């Protein structure tokens, strides 16, 4: 059975060319990052493939490089394509961010294959 889609945020909370962290875990750390580019919203698990527990933003909701064309891991500057999560330069070269399928319904963003929250 498909799991229920999970509400992530309102679409208008993510400006074009910007990003947002959503689905906080019990400690308040965002498990998912959303990036909006050319009207599309892309979702990825907020962990850099380089380390096993590396949140990628440098500040709340700041996941992109300066011109908003790449997802940047602030740990070591790795750059990922927004459309498919492939790392083009950085410590995780050639590796891929884990995709989260998202869709938009009535102005809200939902995710359908969110990772399970690890047991605390």
């Amino acid at each position, binding site marked *: 059975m498909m799991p229920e889609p999970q509400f992530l945020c309102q679409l208008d909370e993510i400006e074009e060319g910007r990003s947002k962290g959503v689905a906080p875990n019990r400690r308040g750390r965002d498990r998912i990052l959303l990036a909006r580019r050319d009207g599309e919203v892309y979702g990825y698990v907020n962990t850099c493939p380089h380390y096993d527990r590396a949140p990628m933003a440098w500040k709340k909701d700041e996941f992109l490089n300066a011109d908003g064309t790449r997802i*940047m891991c602030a740990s070591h500057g790795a750059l990922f394509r927004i459309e498919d999560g492939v790392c083009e330069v950085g410590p995780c070269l050639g590796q891929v961010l884990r995709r989260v399928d998202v869709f938009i319904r009535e102005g809200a963003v939902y995710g359908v294959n969110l990772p399970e929250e690890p047991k605390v």
Partner: protein
Amino acid sequence: MRIIGPDELVFGVDNVKACETFLVDYGLASVGNGRFTALDNTAITVREKSDPSLPAPLKTATMLRQTIWGVEDQATLDQIEAELSRDRAVAKAADGTLSCKDDSGFELAFRITRRTVLNLPAELINSPGAAPGRAVNAIGANEDAEAKPRTLSHIVYFLPNMDEAARFYTDRLGFVVTDKFTNTGPFLRPQANNDHHVLFMIQTPDYMQGLEHLAFHMQGPTELMLAGSRMVKKGYESFWGPGRHKFGSNWFWYFNCPLGTHFEYDADMDKHDGEWIERETALTKEASQMFLFENVEKWSPGGPPPDAK
């Protein structure tokens, strides 16, 4: 050779404004021309990555463009120039600063240090059995303490060949290995500094080469936690810590930043001299730290009022 430690790190970044905000929030002072200083004038400099005044970048993601080492005197600069000129180009600027590459391709510079000598109190604690650290009625928990980084402590390179890389610093520049993680890399200190390390290396594939992190020394564990919790409150991403390392004994708290490296606050690092005998162990989670905590939301104890049924 009387090398003291890192004097200044120069970055070529893609988001100058974000970096400037981060560096001020981290606790450095903006002194103009892209320079941000600790209390002793050691510094971070950020420029737009296309700035022609910057040394060429590595081909990797790192934004570090130059590591400037501070030395005690002109005699040391002369020694470095003579030694390194034997097998590489060493440029000399009008102010006497030397620049060249190390054996891994990192851009280096050497200059007479611009750091000032600090005269500041240590963290003062009261400990049973010892004389009180603070005067009677002097308060320890000062939420308004400035908690400013005092001095640039150390840097950590990702690089592909730790043994070759370390030999450049030990054989050519007189650094000493204080401890080593087998198959990962050595902790190094130069001759004019007895801190456990000013340079550490982590061996990686060549496409990862760059700056893993940098650290500034804080007054002590309390200021480290105060500064770190202020960063969390401002929305910055805590990466690792607070905790206390084993090698070096320093307290640590690492943050992500828009300079594409980790900025660490550290405090209370061990000091060593020539009598110290190097330790070596495999790098494991256990070996990496004595303990590790994570910032959580504030909480307070309490109960219902006495007349509640």
